[in-house]
């Protein structure tokens, strides 16, 4: 019994205390340290959300086929992600995934 999400928290705690670079022999050639990588990805994620959160909200439910035919019932049923089947799954924001964990 591993409880996978605990591994993420453990990794985060260790990363915040360990600023050493990585050994490229073990990481497929990357030398960047975990801490530095964390800061870069964190910053990228932070800046990126301003686009779907404010500038271009359509990036979340990126159902571009329904944008071409916004009044077509069948297109919206098949390719709409919000109330349809969502057959073209493409999104640019992971806030959507937060809907997958709240008790209802």
């Amino acid at each position: 019994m591993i409880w996978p999400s605990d591994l993420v928290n453990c990794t985060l705690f260790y990363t915040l205390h360990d600023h050493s670079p990585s050994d490229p022999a073990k990481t497929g050639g990357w030398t960047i340290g975990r801490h530095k990588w964390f800061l870069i990805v964190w910053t990228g994620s932070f800046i990126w959300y301003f686009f779907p959160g404010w500038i271009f909200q359509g990036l979340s439910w990126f159902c571009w086929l329904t944008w071409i035919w916004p009044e077509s019932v069948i297109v919206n049923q098949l390719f709409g992600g919000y109330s349809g089947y969502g057959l073209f799954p493409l999104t640019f924001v992971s806030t959507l995934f937060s809907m997958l964990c709240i008790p209802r």
Partner: protein
Amino acid sequence: MSPLIPPFHAIANVVGGIFVFFIVVSMGIHYSGYWYADYLPVQNSHAYDNSGYRYDVTEILTDFQFDEAKYFAYSPLYLPTQFALAYGLAFATIAAVIVHVALYHGRSIWAQMKMARNQEDDIHMRLMKKYRDAEDWWYAVLFVTMLALSFVVVCAWPTSMPWWAYVVCMVIPVVWTIPIGIVQAVTNIQLGLNVLTEYIVGYMLPGRPLAMMIFKNYGYVCMSQALFFAQDLKLGHYMKVPPRILFWSQLIASIWSAIVQIAVMNWALGAIPDICTDTQANQYTCPNAKVFYTASVIWGAIGPARMFSGDALYSSLQWFWLLGAITPIITWFLARRYPRSIWRYVNLPLVFGGSGWIPPATAYIYFCWGTVGAFFNYYLRRRNQGWWLQYNYVTSAALDTGLIVSTFIVFFALWMSGAQPPVWFGNVEALSTLDMVSRAVKSAVPPGETFGPSTWP
């Protein structure tokens, strides 16, 4: 939930289940017009009446109790296709998780129970033995205190819930915590008991929405929180936090968070304009609260008997109990007969129940989630395991924390300050398609007319 965390076999089971049930089966039902699907959207979190509008629960309640005369005068309840199907899958999950865990893990559960604390310690346990353990009676006292408080809540306020219903309610987490916990500990996906609690209380105390919500919270959320609690204890174990400190920090944090939650909720209901409406500017549309509300109407006010018993519209969904109970036996035999085949990885509680957040989540969200998960936990993990070991989890943590901080800033600095987001296609037209407003419905009901039967159970 980050798609970078669950192992690939868990993701594959969940997405496979969604494809089979929420695409193939659901399309068969929807496009054949079964369940009057022509008049309803494919999926969202609302219930509908027989004129194609959202079900207005105030029409059937008198003083928050179900009023049968009003119900017959108004309308039976219709659900979007995938919403109805989600109930069937919930039945299957509840049955499947018990059978699955008994077959696959029964022997090891029994062995562990017999050994109890006399097992050989692993490295974590040996290190933890340096600390003084939190006494068992601390937990016992906490349990008794909380049990007493719960009885006070149920009996002292006008909840319309008798005390014995609370006793029944406590049996549910006792039975299901271990099976669901085993699935969560392996796959990082927690199956829900919401429908089981709704089902039991709906037959037991029909026509009482408030009692139903209390029953559901105590029965289901108890199990859910118990497992998150166990997960946090395990985190403490991994990080070598002294058990006594862990106990007190969890207890104090729980009490504090209860106070903060109530305060924030009351603030939000007063301060955010149009909160919980579909047109709320920053999408504070309360999708989970809406599903909770719809569920309380279906199960608490109208009651499962009118929806799922006898010749009610959705009675065929009861077959899912049987489906969920039998299919794990088949996969278990196949996995034993062909131990090196793909059957080894088939986990039916996940196939049925991994989709438990639909609605309000949608198949689209799951497919996006599965695609990202498969990229990291299948493709990258095989192609460059060194990278995956070194960076996968820290990438997941960075993406999530960066996003959370960013949502706070965008919300408080931009939305709450009254600033207007740029008005252009990507913020207006992209959000007003038939899909986004849940109006992708084949046939509209003419004004003043209704669809479906003229009498209903």
